[in-house]
């Protein structure tokens, strides 16, 4: 391992600008003559728009324009779309409603935009927005997914009777039901996977500029995938031809999925910029983010697990209602289906699995992928069932897991996925050692002596990352291919620019991608720059989500580097007057086998461009190669997290006393960055389990739409984490990488809730297990559980 190559904990190249305040986020960018846009949003969850009177607003100081959904429709700006087609079990297509960027006929959730004001300053735009008179006819609303399909529930979109978008299923129902009939023991759980708000600390933003001289548009926005944004806004919304639209996602302050999607605001900014022929800027405030960023999770599930007399899991079945909110967001349909039910086998060999999912509309903010996307929901179902099953059968929860682990690979589950490599017992064993599980009994007794309840919970999770072979996802309904692109440009002086279709918004690609190139070409990491996030600079790429940038994005770079090396060897052969087949390349030096002839990397790069040593007929000048890489399988990171916690029965307060994570991410490029990804994921997972829960009242009002009300994890709510790894190489990509971005968020909720229920001695508590919820549960069971272990 070199000091900066694969496996080295290199300090991040991108950090200097961030720690000196020189990052360039979307809201840091300004254009001459820019205007500010303010969205007037529905205060009602469900309301017909009878009339909008904009006369008073238009007369306000500084107002440039007031625009409505009718104006948008008149200009024939198309609707937003969901890009993954799901077919119901009866063969009918999903029921996708129209989703205009500004509501024209009716508003379907609190925060749905009904008009915009564009003014010289933001203050003037907001002031004028106050003067806009919208005559609403308020309609009954439904926010609870469990009530959305009930007879008499308010109908949100005519296209979807009973507010049902699809009724989908996966697996063999007959065989699964038969296995349940034959079961020795059945564990049953009702689970609510609580609705979360992603809350990247940088709010979404957009700045649109129209160049009338070339009739082209530029959009700076907070995007995880600028090319996909350009494609959708060009091809489906019909804003401008793709080559007349440039999308730039500069520094982006966190995404966690919420910045994948194509949102109304960026569409409206582009449209408005052309209409007023001036740049238009929008920056979401936090309250607006709560009302417009796609939320995550929000499943209601009944799940059952069947065991034989020896504790072998023989079957799993689940029925889930998934809330997709008021409109179908860009990838919403895939989250509770192919990203969820396909992981219900967990780390276990389960012969029979059947899952039914009803996706429903409600009068709430759209729901889409949030860190983990479907896999945290699946892991929670499986890991809670296993843990509760062990308790009901009086077995050790770790032993029950070990008994059921998949042990030979490849392993085909009954729900599509073919696991390629792993050693689940190894990560469990290592985690148990680090967490000192053997000493837990004593610690529990010590806690009891202090009047505290101590619990320990496991989560042995698996996830499918890399998303994934284009042909496979295409057959499952995806509207896009899920490959990745790279271009490696070698400059005449030997420095290198890598143009990647991946996008970094905290993951550190400028460092890890450069490590890959430095190790391969034997050049200093300082001589490499990573270019991403600008559709005018970078070839089409798919962006970053699903922990795919290592496994897929970096593999595309490897393929481009293969081509660069092959071409450079040809150049070196001419320079060294040797046969191409005799040229060897190592540590930044080209040599001729069996001789002392050599050429340095920089000399070969220069010769590729000055082209003095070969004719154009023999070799094209230049040194620049591109590649597209389409994976052959998903990757399957897996591991074991153990949470140990203590509850104060007097207050219901939970304190996490220890967190151990042992993950198998395959080959690791930069362990420092990987640990950071795991820390952040765990914090979000602990947030879901203990603090975060999005509350709508029965009328569809968001009750906790600010940081005063929505409990974000803070530093003093969390412990320091013990992080370690095991390694089985991923066989489906040349680097052996599996991906690490989502693991913590996937593993953590089940570990916390298994520990809390262990401490409380009852399964009767849902996420978030706030102090109030824990206290109420304790009053119900009326126990203080003295030293039992």
């Amino acid at each position, binding site marked *: 391992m070199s000091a900066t190559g694969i496996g080295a904990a290199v300090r991040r190249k991108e950090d200097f600008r961030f720690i000196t*305040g020189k990052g360039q986020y979307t809201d840091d960018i300004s254009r001459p003559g820019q205007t500010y846009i303010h969205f007037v949003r529905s205060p009602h969850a469900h309301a017909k728009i009878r009339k909008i009177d904009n006369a008073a607003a238009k007369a306000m100081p500084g107002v440039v324009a007031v625009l409505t959904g009718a104006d948008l429709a008149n200009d024939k700006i198309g609707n937003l779309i969901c890009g993954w087609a799901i077919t119901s079990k009866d063969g009918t297509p999903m029921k996708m409603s129209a989703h205009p960027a500004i509501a024209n006929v009716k508003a379907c959730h609190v925060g749905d935009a009904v008009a915009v004001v564009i003014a010289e300053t933001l203050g003037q735009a907001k002031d004028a927005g106050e003067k806009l008179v919208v005559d609403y006819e308020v309609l009954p609303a439904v926010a609870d997914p469990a009530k959305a399909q009930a007879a008499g529930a308010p109908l949100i979109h005519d296209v979807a009777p009973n507010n049902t978008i699809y009724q989908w299923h996966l697996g063999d129902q007959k065989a699964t039901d038969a296995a349940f009939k034959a079961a020795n023991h059945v564990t049953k759980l009702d689970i609510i996977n609580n609705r979360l708000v992603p809350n990247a600390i940088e709010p979404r933003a957009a700045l649109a500029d129209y160049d009338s001289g070339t009739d082209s548009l530029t959009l700076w926005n907070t995007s995880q995938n600028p090319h996909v944004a350009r494609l959708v806004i060009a091809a489906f919304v019909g804003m401008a031809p793709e080559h007349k639209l440039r999308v730039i996602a500069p520094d982006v302050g966190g995404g966690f999925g919420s910045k994948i999607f194509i949102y109304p605001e960026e569409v409206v900014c582009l449209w408005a910029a052309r209409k007023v022929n001036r740049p238009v800027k929008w920056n979401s405030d936090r309250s607006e983010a709560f009302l417009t960023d796609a939320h995550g999770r929000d499943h209601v599930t009944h799940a059952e697990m069947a065991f034989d007399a020896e504790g072998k899991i023989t079957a799993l079945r689940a029925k889930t209602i998934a809330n997709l909110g008021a409109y179908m967001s860009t990838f919403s349909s895939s989250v509770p289906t192919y990203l969820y039910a396909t992981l219900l086998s967990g780390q276990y060999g389960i012969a029979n699995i059947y899952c039914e999912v009803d996706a429903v509309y409600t009068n709430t903010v759209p729901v889409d992928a949030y860190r983990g996307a479907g896999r945290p929901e699946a892991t929670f179902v499986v890991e809670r069932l296993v843990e509760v099953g062990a308790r009901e059968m009086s077995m050790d929860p770790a032993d029950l897991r070990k008994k059921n682990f998949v042990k030979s690979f490849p392993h085909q589950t009954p729900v599509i996925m073919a696991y390629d490599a792993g050693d689940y017992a190894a990560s469990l064993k290592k985690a148990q050692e680090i967490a000192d599980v053997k000493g837990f009994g004593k610690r529990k007794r010590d806690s009891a002596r202090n009047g505290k309840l101590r619990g320990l919970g496991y989560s042995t999770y698996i996830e499918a990352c890399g998303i994934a072979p284009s042909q496979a996802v295409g057959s499952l309904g995806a509207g896009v291919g899920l490959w990745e692109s790279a271009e490696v440009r070698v400059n005449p002086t030997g420095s290198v620019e890598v143009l990647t279709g991946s996008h970094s918004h905290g993951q550190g690609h400028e460092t890890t991608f450069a490590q890959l190139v430095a190790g391969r070409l034997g050049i200093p990491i300082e001589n490499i720059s990573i270019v991403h996030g600008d559709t005018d600079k970078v070839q089409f790429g798919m962006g970053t989500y699903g922990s795919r940038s290592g496994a897929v994005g970096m593999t595309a770079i490897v393929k481009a580097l293969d081509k660069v090396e092959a071409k450079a060897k040809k150049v070196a052969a001419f320079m060294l007057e040797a046969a191409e087949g005799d040229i060897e390349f190592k540590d930044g030096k080209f040599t001729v086998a069996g001789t002392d002839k050599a050429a340095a990397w920089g000399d070969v790069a220069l010769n590729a461009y000055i082209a003095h040593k070969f004719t154009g007929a023999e070799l094209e000048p230049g040194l620049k190669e591109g590649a597209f890489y389409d994976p052959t399988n998903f990757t399957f990171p897996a591991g074991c997290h153990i949470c140990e916690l203590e509850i104060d029965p007097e207050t219901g307060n939970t304190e996490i006393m220890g967190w151990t994570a042992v993950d198998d991410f395959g080959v690791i490029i930069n362990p420092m960055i990987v640990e950071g990804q795991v820390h952040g994921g765990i914090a979000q997972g602990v947030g879901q389990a203990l603090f975060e829960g999005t509350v709508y009242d029965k009328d569809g009002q968001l009750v906790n739409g600010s940081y005063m009300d929505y409990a974000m994890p803070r530093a003093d709510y969390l412990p320091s984490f013990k992080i370690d790894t095991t390694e089985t190489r991923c066989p489906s990509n040349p680097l052996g990488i599996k991906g690490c971005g989502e693991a913590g968020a996937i593993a953590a909720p089940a570990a916390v809730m298994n520990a809390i229920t262990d401490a409380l001695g009852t399964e009767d508590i849902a996420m978030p297990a706030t102090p109030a919820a824990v206290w109420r549960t304790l009053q119900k069971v009326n126990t203080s559980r003295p030293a039992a272990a």
Partner: protein
Amino acid sequence: MPAVSMTVNGNPVKGDADARTLLVQYLRETLRLTGTHVGCDTSQCGACVVDVNGKAVKSCTMFAWQAEGASVTTIEGLANGATLHPMQEAFRDNHGLQCGFCTPGMIMTAVDMVKRKGHDLDDKTIREELEGNICRCTGYHNIVKAIAAGAKAMA
């Protein structure tokens, strides 16, 4: 619009600000010092923390005119020329940042914390003192490490 004068990062500055212009807007939009960020609208996240007359202040909670005549230091003014402040170095050395958006506020808060609490900071103190700063990326683990190391390096 009335003009507001103050010293920012050692330089006297003057710029127009109406009565409702927040200090953070004045810094970001009038002075184009965009290193100070806005992550919320309820003074919870701390991305906007700057130093005003020697105290850490959330610049979204005061008007620009309230800083008339004040001495303000932002993240852009923390380094001594090309030499980074020890707390900036500590954040980089300890991977105390990911997306970087909360980072300026974290670093400004950390420097203030050392001023008030000294150079030998334990985890519990650091975590409690970070009550007013939210990070969504790091899980705080490496921020806590960075601040402990930065506090020692500032001694």
